[in-house]
C-alpha cells in the first residue's frame, strides 16, 4: 500500500458513497506479458500462498517463504529464486518448474492444488517463467489508486452483478486487475460474492464488499431493498438523527416500528443514562405526567444526575485503564485507581468539553503548573493518605490534569501509543507493530512516526537522588532510617501495652499511638519513592520509536500524524503531545470526534454506526455515513459538548422506538428499524439486582468505597475470582473488562450470555439470600401492604419497572395465595421476574 492511496482513503473515510462507474480501462491481457510484482505476486495473494498460515509465515512453510500478504515483491522474487533455482524454477521447461508442479498438485503439496493445469492462473505463471522469470521495476507497479466499480450498487434480491477493479500504477498506467483480486462479503445474509467478483443479492439489507488486489484493499457497497409496495408509514422525525435513519429504511423499504410505551422508555433511559433502574415512585410519577414533552424533560433530568458521571467514569475507565500502578514507586494500586476514577467522574459531572478532557489527559504533567516543591507536598500528602488507607479523593479530582494516566506501566512509548490511538481515535493498531493487517491500512511507519509524539513524555520511575533538590534527596535517604526508628518505637509501645501491669485504658492509648507511628513510618518509606513519578516533558531525551518483531526491526525518526503525508518539525524543547491535541480538536480531524460520537452511539444501540465501534477504517464502512458525519459535525460545532451529543441521540425517535420490529424488518440488525436489545452491563445488572431485592453489595475495604455505594462506582480491578467475594465473581462472569493495558479492544467488555450467568441469576446463594433477607425488599413490601394485588404491583415495579398486566396480576396473585406464606410467594415472584429476559436486558 502506498502513501498516496492511504491519504486518498483517509480523505474518503466514511464519506457518503457515490455511485461511480469507472471508464473501461485499456485491457491488457496480463497472462500474455505478466509482470512479477503486478501480476504474479497478486496472484499468490489471491490463491492464499502468502497468507500467515502458509508461506507468508515468518518461518515459511516446508522451507519456502513469501512476504506476508505480498508486501515485498522484491523479497518474494529473491526467495523464489533461492528456493526454486535450477530445475525448480525452469524458464526453459516451465512445466517442469516445481513452482507450477506444486501449485497444480502434480507433486505432493501440503497446501493442495491451488490452480488447474489449464487455467488462466497457470498460463500467467507459465508465461512469466517463459519470459525469463524476471523481477520487474517494483516502483513502477506501486499502486497509486485502486478503484472498484460499482462502488455502490442497489440490487434486487436474486439478481447479480459483476465488480470490476482497476488499478492505477506509479508509472501512470491503468489496468483491469479484477482477475487478480479476492472478494469478500461482510454480511453474508445480504449477498454472496464469488471468486470472479460476481455479487448475488441474497437478503434485504446492505453490506460492504472487501476487495483486495495484492497488498492493497478497497471497499464497495451493495444494497438490497425489500420487495413489496406497502406505503412507507408517515412517521415524523424528531431530529436529524431520525431523518438519516428513516431515509435509509425508506431505501431498503423496511418499516420503522412504533414508539415504546412510557414505562419501557423510562426504564430504558434510566439504565442507559444513569445505570440505575427507576424507583416505583419515579415510574408512577412519569406515567401520571400528562406533559407532551415529558420524555425530553426526563432526559435532561437524568443527564444531570450523579449516575451519569459514574457511568461515564466507568466507560472511560474501560478505555483509559486505571491499573498497573507500580508499587515500587510508592503507588498503591487500589488507591490510585480510585483517584483516577474520581478525577474522571468529576470531569463528567462538570461536563467538560470532550476536547479539553482529552487535552487534560494527554497533556498531563504532575506539577500542573506549580513549582516542583508544591508537587512534592502533594506527593507526601498522597503518601500519608495511602499509609492511612484513606485516599483523599476530592483533592486529586480537583487537579487540572490526570498525571496518573502516564504513571501506569506501559503508558508511554509504542505500547502507550496503541492505547492513545484506541482510546481517543477509535483505531486498532496492534497489528501495525509488525505488519499491516489485511483489513486495515496502517503500516509500521505510520505507527512509529505517530509514537514519536509520545516518546518524550516521562512516566513513572524510581527516583534518581541526583536530580532531586538536596532537601528531598535527604528525605529520600533519611526517610527509611527515620521510619525504622519509628517502627522500633511502635514495637516498644505495643510490647509495653501487653504488660499486665498497664491499665487497659493506657494500653489502648499505647496501641493507638503505635499505629500512628507505624503509619508515619509507612509514609516516610513510601512517600519519597514517588518522587520519581513526575510526569513531564523531557526535551533533552531524544529516543525514537522502534519496533522489533520476527519480521524485522523498524525505526522512525519522524513526527507524522496518522493519515498525514508530511511529517511535522518538532523542536527539542517542544512537548510533541501538544501537536497531537491540536490536531485532534481540528474540525477536519478524521478520527477524534467521530470515534467518540460512534462510541456514544454504540453505548445506546449496542453497535456503532461503524461497527466494531473501535475499528475506524476505510475498510470497515459505516452503515449511515451521513448520520455519522452530521453527528460528528454537530459535536464539534457544539464545542465538543458531550451532553449535547447524548441529548441529540436520546431525543431521537429512533432511540424511543419499541424493541418489537415491524414485520418488514424482522431480520434487520443494522438499520435501527426497532430498538436493539442489549444485555445489561455487569455493574448495571448488579445494581439492578440490589435495587430490586433491597440488598447491598459488601465491598472489600481495599476498594475505598463508602457503604451503600453502587457497583458502578468500583474503580479498579476487584481481585481474583477465588476470593469468595461475589462481587468479583459476578464482575468476571458478566464480562466486566479486566482492563489489560496490553489489549486494545472495546470487546474486552463482553456482553455475551453464558450458562454460568443463567445459573448465577437462578441460583447463586447470595442472590437467593438477598431475595429472602428479613431486611430485604420483599419483607418490607409484606410489612407495608396487606393487599396481595398491591404487593404484587410493588414487586413488579421494583424489578421490571412497570405495572403488571391483567394476566400478570392474576397469575401472580393466584401463585401467592397458593404459597406457604405471602412472603414466600412474593419471593418466588421476585425470583421469577429477576430471571426474565425483561430484567437482564435493556429493551
Amino acid at each position, binding site marked *: 500500500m502506498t502513501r498516496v492511496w492511504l491519504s486518498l482513503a483517509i480523505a474518503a473515510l466514511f464519506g457518503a458513497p457515490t455511485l461511480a462507474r469507472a471508464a473501461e480501462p485499456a485491457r491488457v491481457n496480463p497472462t500474455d506479458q505478466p509482470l512479477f510484482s503486478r501480476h504474479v505476486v497478486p496472484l499468490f495473494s489471491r490463491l492464499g500462498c502468502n497468507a500467515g498460515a502458509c508461506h507468508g509465515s515468518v518461518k515459511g512453510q516446508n522451507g519456502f517463504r513469501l512476504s506476508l500478504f505480498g508486501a515485498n515483491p522484491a523479497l518474494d522474487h529473491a526467495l523464489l529464486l533461492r528456493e526454486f533455482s535450477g530445475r525448480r524454477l525452469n524458464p526453459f521447461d516451465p512445466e517442469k518448474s516445481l513452482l507450477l508442479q506444486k501449485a497444480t498438485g502434480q507433486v505432493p503439496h501440503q497446501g493442495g492444488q491451488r490452480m488447474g493445469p489449464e487455467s488462466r492462473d497457470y498460463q500467467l505463471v507459465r508465461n512469466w517463467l517463459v519470459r525469463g522469470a524476471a523481477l520487474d521495476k517494483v516502483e513502477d507497479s506501486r499502486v497509486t489508486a485502486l478503484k472498484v466499480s460499482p462502488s455502490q450498487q442497489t440490487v434486487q434480491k436474486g439478481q447479480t452483478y459483476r465488480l470490476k477493479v482497476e488499478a492505477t500504477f506509479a508509472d501512470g498506467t491503468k489496468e483491469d486487475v479484477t482477475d487478480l483480486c479476492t472478494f469478500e462479503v461482510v454480511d453474508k445474509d445480504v449477498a454472496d460474492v464469488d471468486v470472479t467478483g460476481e455479487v448475488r443479492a441474497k437478503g434485504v439489507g446492505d453490506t460492504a464488499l472487501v476487495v483486495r488486489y495484492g497488498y492493497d484493499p478497497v471497499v464497495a457497497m451493495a444494497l438490497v431493498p425489500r420487495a413489496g409496495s406497502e406505503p412507507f408509514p408517515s412517521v415524523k422525525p424528531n431530529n436529524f438523527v431520525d431523518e438519516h435513519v428513516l431515509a435509509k429504511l425508506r431505501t431498503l423499504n423496511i418499516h420503522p416500528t412504533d414508539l415504546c410505551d412510557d414505562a419501557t422508555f423510562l426504564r430504558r433511559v434510566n439504565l442507559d443514562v444513569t445505570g440505575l433502574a427507576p424507583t416505583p415512585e419515579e415510574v408512577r410519577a412519569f406515567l401520571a405526567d400528562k406533559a407532551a414533552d415529558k420524555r425530553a424533560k426526563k432526559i435532561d433530568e437524568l443527564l444531570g444526575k450523579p449516575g451519569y458521571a459514574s457511568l461515564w467514569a466507568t466507560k472511560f475507565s474501560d478505555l483509559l485503564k486505571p491499573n498497573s500502578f507500580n508499587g515500587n514507586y510508592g503507588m498503591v494500586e487500589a488507591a490510585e485507581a480510585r483517584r483516577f476514577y474520581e478525577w474522571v467522574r468529576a470531569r463528567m459531572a462538570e461536563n467538560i468539553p470532550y476536547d479539553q478532557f482529552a487535552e487534560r489527559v494527554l497533556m498531563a504533567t504532575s506539577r500542573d503548573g506549580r513549582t516542583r516543591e508544591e508537587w512534592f507536598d502533594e506527593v507526601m500528602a498522597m503518601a500519608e493518605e495511602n499509609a492511612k488507607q484513606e485516599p483523599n479523593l476530592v483533592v486529586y479530582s480537583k487537579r487540572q490534569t490526570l498525571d496518573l494516566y502516564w504513571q501506569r506501566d506501559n503508558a508511554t512509548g509504542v505500547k502507550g501509543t496503541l492505547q492513545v490511538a484506541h482510546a481517543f481515535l477509535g483505531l486498532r493498531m496492534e497489528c501495525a507493530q509488525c505488519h499491516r493487517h489485511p*483489513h486495515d491500512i496502517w503500516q509500521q511507519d505510520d505507527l512509529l512516526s505517530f509514537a514519536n509524539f509520545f516518546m518524550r513524555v516521562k512516566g513513572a520511575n524510581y527516583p534518581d537522588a541526583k536530580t532531586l533538590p538536596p532537601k528531598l534527596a535527604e528525605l529520600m535517604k533519611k526517610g527509611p532510617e527515620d521510619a525504622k526508628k519509628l517502627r522500633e518505637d511502635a514495637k516498644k509501645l505495643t510490647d509495653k501495652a501487653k504488660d499486665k501491669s498497664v491499665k487497659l485504658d493506657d494500653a489502648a492509648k499505647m496501641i493507638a499511638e503505635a499505629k500512628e507511628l507505624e503509619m508515619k513510618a509507612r509514609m516516610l518509606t513510601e512517600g519519597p519513592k514517588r518522587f520519581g513519578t513526575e510526569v513531564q516533558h523531557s526535551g533533552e531525551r531524544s529516543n525514537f520509536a522502534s519496533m522489533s518483531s520476527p519480521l524485522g526491526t523498524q525505526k522512525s525518526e519522524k513526527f507524522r500524524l496518522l493519515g498525514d503525508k508530511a511529517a511535522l518539525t518538532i523542536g527539542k524543547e517542544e512537548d510533541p503531545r501538544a501537536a497531537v491535541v491540536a490536531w485532534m480538536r481540528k474540525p477536519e480531524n478524521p478520527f477524534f470526534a467521530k470515534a467518540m460520537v460512534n462510541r456514544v452511539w454504540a453505548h445506546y444501540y449496542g453497535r456503532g454506526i461503524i461497527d466494531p465501534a473501535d475499528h475506524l477504517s476505510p475498510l470497515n464502512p459505516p452503515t449511515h455515513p451521513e448520520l455519522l458525519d452530521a453527528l460528528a459535525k454537530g459535536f464539534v460545532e457544539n464545542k465538543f459538548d458531550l451532553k449535547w451529543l447524548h441529548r441529540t441521540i436520546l431525543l431521537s425517535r429512533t432511540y424511543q422506538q419499541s424493541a418489537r420490529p415491524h414485520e418488514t424488518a424482522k431480520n434487520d440488525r443494522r438499520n435501527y428499524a426497532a430498538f436493539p436489545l442489549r444485555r445489561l452491563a455487569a455493574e448495571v445488572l448488579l445494581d439492578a439486582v440490589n435495587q430490586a431485592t433491597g440488598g447491598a453489595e459488601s465491598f472489600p475495604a481495599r476498594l475505598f468505597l463508602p457503604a451503600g455505594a453502587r457497583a458502578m462506582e468500583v474503580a479498579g480491578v476487584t481481585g481474583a475470582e477465588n476470593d469468595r467475594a461475589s462481587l468479583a465473581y459476578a464482575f468476571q462472569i458478566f464480562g466486566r473488562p479486566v482492563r489489560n493495558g496490553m489489549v486494545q479492544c472495546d470487546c474486552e467488555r463482553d456482553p455475551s450470555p453464558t450458562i454460568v450467568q443463567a445459573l448465577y441469576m437462578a441460583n447463586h*446463594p447470595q442472590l437467593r439470600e438477598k431475595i429472602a433477607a428479613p431486611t430485604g425488599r420483599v419483607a418490607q413490601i409484606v410489612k407495608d401492604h396487606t393487599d396481595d394485588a398491591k404487593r404484587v404491583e410493588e414487586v413488579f415495579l421494583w424489578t421490571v419497572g412497570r405495572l403488571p398486566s391483567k394476566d400478570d396480576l392474576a397469575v401472580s396473585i393466584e401463585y401467592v395465595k397458593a404459597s406457604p406464606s405471602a412472603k414466600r410467594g412474593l419471593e418466588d415472584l421476585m425470583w421469577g421476574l429477576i430471571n426474565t429476559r425483561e430484567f437482564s436486558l435493556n429493551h
Partner: protein
Amino acid sequence: MFPSQSRRDFFFAGGTGIFGLTMPQLLQARAAAPAKKAKADHVIVVWLGGGPPHQDMFDLKPNAPAEIRGEYKPIDTNVPGIQIGELLPRLAKNADKYTILRSVGINSEKWEHGGGQYWLTGNPRKTGVTPAYPMYGNVVSKLRPAPKDVPTFVAFGDIDNHAYGLKQNYLGPTVDPIVFQPDDAKSEVKGMLVPPVGLELSAFDRRESLRQSLDTQLRGLEDPLVGGMDKFQQTAFDLLRSPKLRTALEIEREPLKVAERYGKNSHGKRVLAARRLVEAGVPFVYTHFESNWDHHGQNFRACKDKLPVLDKAVASLLEDLSATGMLERTIVMVLGEMGRTPKINKDAGRDHWGTCQSVLVAGGGFAGGAVVGATDKHAAYVVDKYYPVESFGRTIYHLLGIDPDQTLLALDNRPHRLIGEDTPLIKEAIA
C-alpha cells in the same frame, strides 16, 4: 506424515485464503463432514503447576552420580521392565493402565513457566498482545458440549496460578470452565450448581412455570440475544433439575474407605470429585493439584510430602475407572509445565528444565503398560523418539475425535488453526 486428508480439505473449502470470510464456508463444510471417530468421551487433567521433577518420579537414573540421581531409588512396577520412583508405590502396581512419555519436552530453556500454556493448549505462545490459545477443555466445550444436564467443563483449584488458556482465550467466555472447590462446603459457586436445600422439585417447577408465564414481554422476538439466553437458561435449569450433578458433587457420599484410598486431603478429594463428575457424564474435568511443584530448594523433602499424596489419588482414580470400565473412554493425564535440572543445586533443589520431562497418560485410547522414548543417562536430553508438545496436543485431539487442523474463529473473527504446527501423533502411546 503431515498431509492428512483433512488438511487438504481445509484448503479446498477455504478457497481463497486464510484470512477473511471464506472461513465460515469452511466451517460449514466441516460441520457437514462426518465427525472422526472418537476414542475418548472424557478427560481428567491432573495439573502439577510448576514443574514436577521427572528424575524423582518417572525417569530415575540410579547409575548417575549422586549430585544428579538424588535420594530416591527406582522400584519395579507390575509391568516387567518398567520402573518408577519409590515414592509412587501404588502407581507402580498400576503401570499396566498407563503410558509414561519420557521423550517429550518444550525443548527450550526460555519457556520456563510459560510452558504451562504450551502443554495445556498444544500451542506455544504466552499471553500478551493477542489472546491466549484455548485449553483442551475450552475446545471441547466449543465443539462437543455435554448432554443437557451436566456442565461440559469443570475446573478445580487455583486456576489463576500457573495454569493457562482456561480463561480469557480467543474462544471467549462462553466456553470458560465452571470453577470451584468441590471440597469447600462454603463455596458459593458450588452452592450455585445445586438447588437450595429444602426446595423440592415440585416447588422448583412451580416457580419456574410462574417465571415462564411472566416472561412474555419479549416473547416472539427473533433475536439472537434472546435466543442465546433462552438456550443457556434452559441448560441451567436442566442442570439444576437433574440429580446427576447434585449427586456427583456430594463427595461425602463416597464410602469412608474409598475416600481414604484417595487421601483425606483437598487434592485427593478433588481427584475423587473429578471421578464422580466424569461418571455423571461431565466431559472435561481439570484439577489443579496445587501450584507449588517448583522445587528450587529442598526438592527431596517436597517430594516426600507430595508424591505419596499424588500417588494415592491418581492410583485410586485409575483403579476405580478401570474397575468400572470407564477408563476405556476417559483420558487421564498427569503433567506439569516442564522438567527439572538434572544437577541438584546448592539448596538441594532442582531448577527449571525445558528440554525434557515425563508425562503420564492413560485411558481413552492411550496404551497401558508402555513407556515412550528415552532420555540420556542424566535424564537431561531426549535420546529416543522426541515429540514436541504439539504432538501431545494433536494426540489428545485425535483421541477425542477432534480435528486438530480445523480453523476456529476468535471473537474478533481472526482465524486460528487449532494446533498451529504440523507434527506427528505420538503413535507409540496409542493403544
